[in-house]
């Protein structure tokens, strides 16, 4: 079912998976109309990306 050593995702793939799942869940829980949900999901996903990549770049000088 699951390989003994688990499955591997890159940092960015894990980040995308996390952002997508949480955005969809928040969109469905937080909004009622389909159009509002789609707008919320896209906006939330976009903000996840912007904030995540922004923090990554801000931390870059301290990474080595």
């Amino acid at each position, binding site marked *: *079912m*699951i390989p*003994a*050593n*688990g*499955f*591997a*995702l890159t*940092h960015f793939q*894990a980040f995308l*998976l*996390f952002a997508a*799942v*949480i955005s*969809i*869940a928040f969109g*469905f*829980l937080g909004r*009622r109309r389909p159009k509002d949900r789609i707008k919320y999901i896209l906006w939330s996903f976009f903000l996840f990306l912007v904030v995540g990549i922004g923090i990554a770049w801000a931390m870059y000088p301290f990474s080595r």
Partner: protein
Amino acid sequence: MSDEVIQQTPQVMPAQPPTAGVKRERFAWAVGIAAWLLPGLGHALLRMWGRAVVVFLSVGLLVVAGASMRGTVFSSNGGDAFDTLGYVADLGTGSFYLAARALERDGADVSHADGDYGTRFLATAGVLNLLAALHAYEAARGRKA
């Protein structure tokens, strides 16, 4: 002056008989607990099918991904406060906590980044399910949701 105060005092009239309110509160608690035990069940009981499916799949996907990445599934005999906090977060997935333990037969491996991400996925699944359970509870109480 005292007449004005008396006139301005709002008249609080119960909108429903007390028994109806008690029943509704009990139903809301049952919905909340059901939502915690099986992700999505609370919303399904309220016939919010879209939300039920999304909560089930979201929490399920995070648990399967977290366990597959060999994240830590915390147990009750943790050594410190962070382990206890992780245990509480993992327990938030309800019955999926047992599924995570069953899926992760080879134990956690946080020596690689994947295992660390998996630990976060599992904790996030629990917190997300607790949020969904609270949402279902509030909806069952009649709050706009």
